[in-house]
C-alpha cells in the first residue's frame, strides 16, 4: 500500500496527537509527520541570547510567556538569568507586561514576543495600548513568525512529499481559511484546518484521507466552531498597523523570506532591538543536532544520534527537545 505523509504543522497538534496515542489508531501506511509550527523550536538562538543579555541588565524587567523560560542560548536561558538575580517574570498575557510597565516607571519592561498569527496581533494591540497610555518604558522583542511562507517551503519541498496538511486551528481563527487556497492550488495538496480535541484531529485526518483518495486538493475547515473563511480582520488590521513582514531566520531551517515581523517606523520606539544595542554571537546548530531536518519532517527524532543519549528534556541540545511541544520532546515523553 502506498505510504501517505500527513504533516501536522502546529506544535500543539504534535502534542495532542502524542498524548492521545492517536498514531496507533491510524490505518497502516498513514504517516504523521511533525512540522515546524512550534515558536519555541524555531526562535533563533540569537534572539534568546539577546533576550538573556537584556534581561541581565539592572534597569530591566524581562517579561515572557512560560514557553521561553528554559530555552537555552549561548549563555544560558532566561531561567538561568533569573537564578542569577535578573528580574524575569512569566506572564499569561502581554497585557500583564504592560501593567508591569505602568507599575514600574523607573524600570524598562521588555516583553519577549514569540508566536505565530494567533499571538502577534495580541502584542500589536498591547503596543497600541501602550502608545495610548503614553508609556515610554515598554519594549517588545519582535520574534514572531508567519505561517504561510513556511507552509509554502514545506509544500514545495523536493526532499519530502507531503500529501496533506493538518492546519493549525487557532492561527486560522485569525487568518481565516482563504490564505490556504494558494498553497493548496499551487502544490495540489489538501489542507484541513483542524481543532485540538481528539475528535477534531481524527476528523481532520479522515477528511484529508478522503480528499487524497478522491484526488482533491481543497481547503476544508474541520474546526467549524471557531474558524471561518474570513477569520478575524480586525486582528489582522492591528497587526498590520504595528508590524510589517520581514525576512526572518528560523532555528534549524535558516532564513525564510518575509516569514517574520518587524516594527513599522511609527512604532519603532517600542522595538527592544532599537532600544538595547546588544551584540550576540552567531549561532549554529550544535554538531550532530538533527533539528533542522526534524523540523521539516525529513528525519524523525529517533534518527538523531544525540536523541536520548546526549539530548534529553533536562539537558536539551536542540530546539526540538527544549520546547514542550517539540517533536523530539513528544517522542521522548510518549514514545
Amino acid at each position: 500500500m502506498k505510504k501517505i505523509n500527513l504533516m501536522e504543522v502546529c506544535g500543539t497538534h504534535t502534542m495532542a496527537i502524542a498524548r492521545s496515542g492517536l498514531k496507533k489508531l491510524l490505518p497502516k501506511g498513514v504517516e504523521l509527520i511533525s512540522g515546524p509550527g512550534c515558536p519555541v523550536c524555531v526562535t533563533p538562538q540569537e534572539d534568546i541570547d539577546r533576550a538573556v543579555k537584556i534581561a541581565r541588565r539592572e534597569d530591566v524587567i524581562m517579561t515572557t510567556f512560560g514557553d521561553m523560560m528554559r530555552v537555552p542560548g549561548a549563555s544560558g536561558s532566561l531561567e538561568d538569568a533569573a537564578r542569577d538575580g535578573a528580574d524575569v517574570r512569566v506572564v499569561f498575557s502581554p497585557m500583564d507586561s504592560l501593567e508591569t510597565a505602568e507599575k514600574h516607571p523607573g524600570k524598562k519592561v521588555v516583553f519577549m514576543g514569540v508566536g505565530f498569527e494567533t499571538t502577534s496581533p495580541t502584542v500589536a494591540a498591547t503596543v497600541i495600548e501602550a502608545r495610548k497610555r503614553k508609556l515610554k518604558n515598554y519594549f517588545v522583542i519582535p520574534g514572531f513568525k508567519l505561517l504561510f511562507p513556511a507552509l509554502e517551503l514545506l509544500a514545495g519541498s523536493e526532499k519530502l512529499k507531503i500529501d496533506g496538511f493538518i492546519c493549525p486551528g487557532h492561527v486560522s481563527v485569525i487568518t481565516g481559511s482563504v490564505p490556504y487556497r494558494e498553497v493548496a492550488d499551487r502544490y495540489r495538496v489538501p489542507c484541513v484546518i483542524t481543532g485540538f480535541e481528539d475528535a477534531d484531529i481524527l476528523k481532520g485526518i479522515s477528511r484529508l484521507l478522503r480528499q487524497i483518495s478522491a484526488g482533491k486538493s481543497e481547503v476544508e475547515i474541520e474546526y467549524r466552531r471557531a474558524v471561518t473563511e474570513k477569520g478575524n480582520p480586525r486582528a489582522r488590521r492591528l497587526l498590520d498597523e504595528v508590524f510589517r513582514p520581514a525576512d526572518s531566520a528560523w532555528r534549524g531551517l535558516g532564513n525564510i523570506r518575509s516569514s517574520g515581523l518587524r516594527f513599522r517606523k511609527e512604532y519603532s520606539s517600542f522595538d527592544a532591538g532599537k532600544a538595547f544595542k546588544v551584540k550576540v554571537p552567531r549561532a549554529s546548530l550544535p554538531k550532530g543536532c538533527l533539528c533542522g531536518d526534524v523540523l521539516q519532517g525529513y528525519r524523525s527524532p529517533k534518527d538523531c544520534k544525540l536523541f536520548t543519549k546526549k539530548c534529553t528534556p533536562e539537558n536539551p541540545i536542540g530546539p526540538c527537545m527544549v520546547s514542550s511541544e517539540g517533536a523530539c520532546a513528544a517522542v521522548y515523553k510518549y514514545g
Partner: protein
Amino acid sequence: MCLAAPARVKSVDKDAAEVDFGGVSRKISLGILSGVKEGDHVLVHAGFAIGKVSRQEAEDTARALKELKDVFRS
C-alpha cells in the same frame, strides 16, 4: 501552535470583558475582536479574545467527541 480556551462572556466593559471558563474566571482584553457582547462564547489566547465560538458547532463537536469515546469504549 497555540493554546486557546473557550469561555463565556459574563460582562463587557469597553475593551475588556469578564469571562467564565467553567469554574474559572478572568478579565480579558477585547482589543482584537469586535462585536463581543454578554452571553457570547469566545476563544481566549494569551488573555485576549481571538474569535467567537459558534454554539451550534460546539455542540456538534461535543456530540462527536462523546460518540467517539463511546465507540472506542465498546
